[in-house]
């Protein structure tokens, strides 16, 4: 299991255990994390699973693909550390990952 902490827009942190091989979005939905809508169910087609990756994790989570960048155009308040979390696979290296959710997804 891999620990992930989601910090919501009011600053409240929730830490959950995610299964390797799932995605950061799936782990959030399974654990009832607020502020992640994931309308398209992980299809990289809705941009309602937007998160800001904690600074020290940006290198490890990697860059958004072209398709993900295209979808990020539909998100609000996009920053250099913005990702669509359905596109981040849970791997052992990400143990301790923190992501922050924006106040609005769509």
């Amino acid at each position, binding site marked *: 299991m891999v620990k992930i902490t989601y910090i919501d827009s009011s600053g409240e942190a929730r830490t959950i255990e995610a299964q390797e091989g799932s995605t950061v979005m799936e782990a959030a939905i399974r654990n009832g994390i607020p502020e992640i809508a994931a309308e398209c169910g992980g*299809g990289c087609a809705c941009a309602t699973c937007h998160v800001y990756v904690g600074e020290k994790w940006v290198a490890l989570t990697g860059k958004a693909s072209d398709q993900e*960048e295209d979808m990020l155009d539909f998100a609000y308040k996009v920053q250099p550390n913005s990702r669509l979390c359905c596109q981040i696979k849970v791997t052992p290296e990400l143990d301790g990952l923190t992501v922050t959710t924006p106040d609005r997804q769509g």
Partner: protein
Amino acid sequence: MSESIKTDVVIVGAGPAGLFAVFELGLLDIKAHLIDILPKPGGQCAELYPEKPIYDIPGFAKLSGQELVDALLRQIEPFHPTFHYGEMVESLEVLGSADAPLFRIRADGGQSFECKAVIVAAGGGSFQPKKPPVPGIEAYEGKSVFYAVRKIEDFRGKHVVIVGGGDSALDWTLNLQPVAKHLTLVHRRDEFRGAPHSVKAMRELVTAGRMELRLGQISSLKGEAGELASVTVKDASGGSHEIPCQRLIPFFGLTMKLGPVAEWGLNLHENLVPVDAGTFETNVPSIFAIGDINHYPGKLKLILCGFHEGALAAQKIYHYVYPGKRLTFQYTTSSSSLQKKLGVN
């Protein structure tokens, strides 16, 4: 306004449930018109996951969202349904009674329909443009802020700002640039999803000094009494730029909102329409609800359930459309009259 279209059934929503209902109605000689706010058929399958595989359509081990939609369109072809795309169904009026049902439906484009039964196949609601969370934007909507362009004249001689990097943003940039007093395209990065030839045309206009491209994101609006005066754009390095703006058109994709369905006099249960699980009829006689929009004990939001619901709803609708007529149960495999309707015999 154009004349009212008279038909047997109007289907609200052209997702998989609405599409397959055409087939089941057609076998019973019932004609249907389909209306969808999207510019294309397929609902969630086409809009949200056209390329993703579906593994639980009976008889198909694997099929992508778009493949399913294409197959459904081929299947319903013999019944020549009429599609009305890009139209939001706004109102539904009951004109008749349970014995002689009649409804009037109006779409936002002005077209009206008269029919004997209605199938609400509205899924998770209508796909509507996403609104950027810029503080106070609601106050300008419909006057200075538009999520779609209906009348080009509204933009003539104005300072126009378009936000986005896809085809809608680029197409309207190219279409409105000649009529606008000044046009600025705002996009968060210097790469565009839109068609390469539109990107090229846009860049040529920028080079020629006939429009402006600004990289950044809208952060605030200024204006009075619904009339926008300027927008502030924040760039990647944190700098703010105020640009004059009388018309703002943000393109941020689509999201599903229940929308007008809530105002049609149907009972609602947590944004879903409760139905009888044997006929899929709502609390209003001859209005049916199938697919993701309905609710009954044991409901599953699966495409295959929507198919089943359409088949059963059609049986009951038959009696509203052909009162007093007997309906005999037949198989497509062996009934020559069904095969004739399908054009295979």
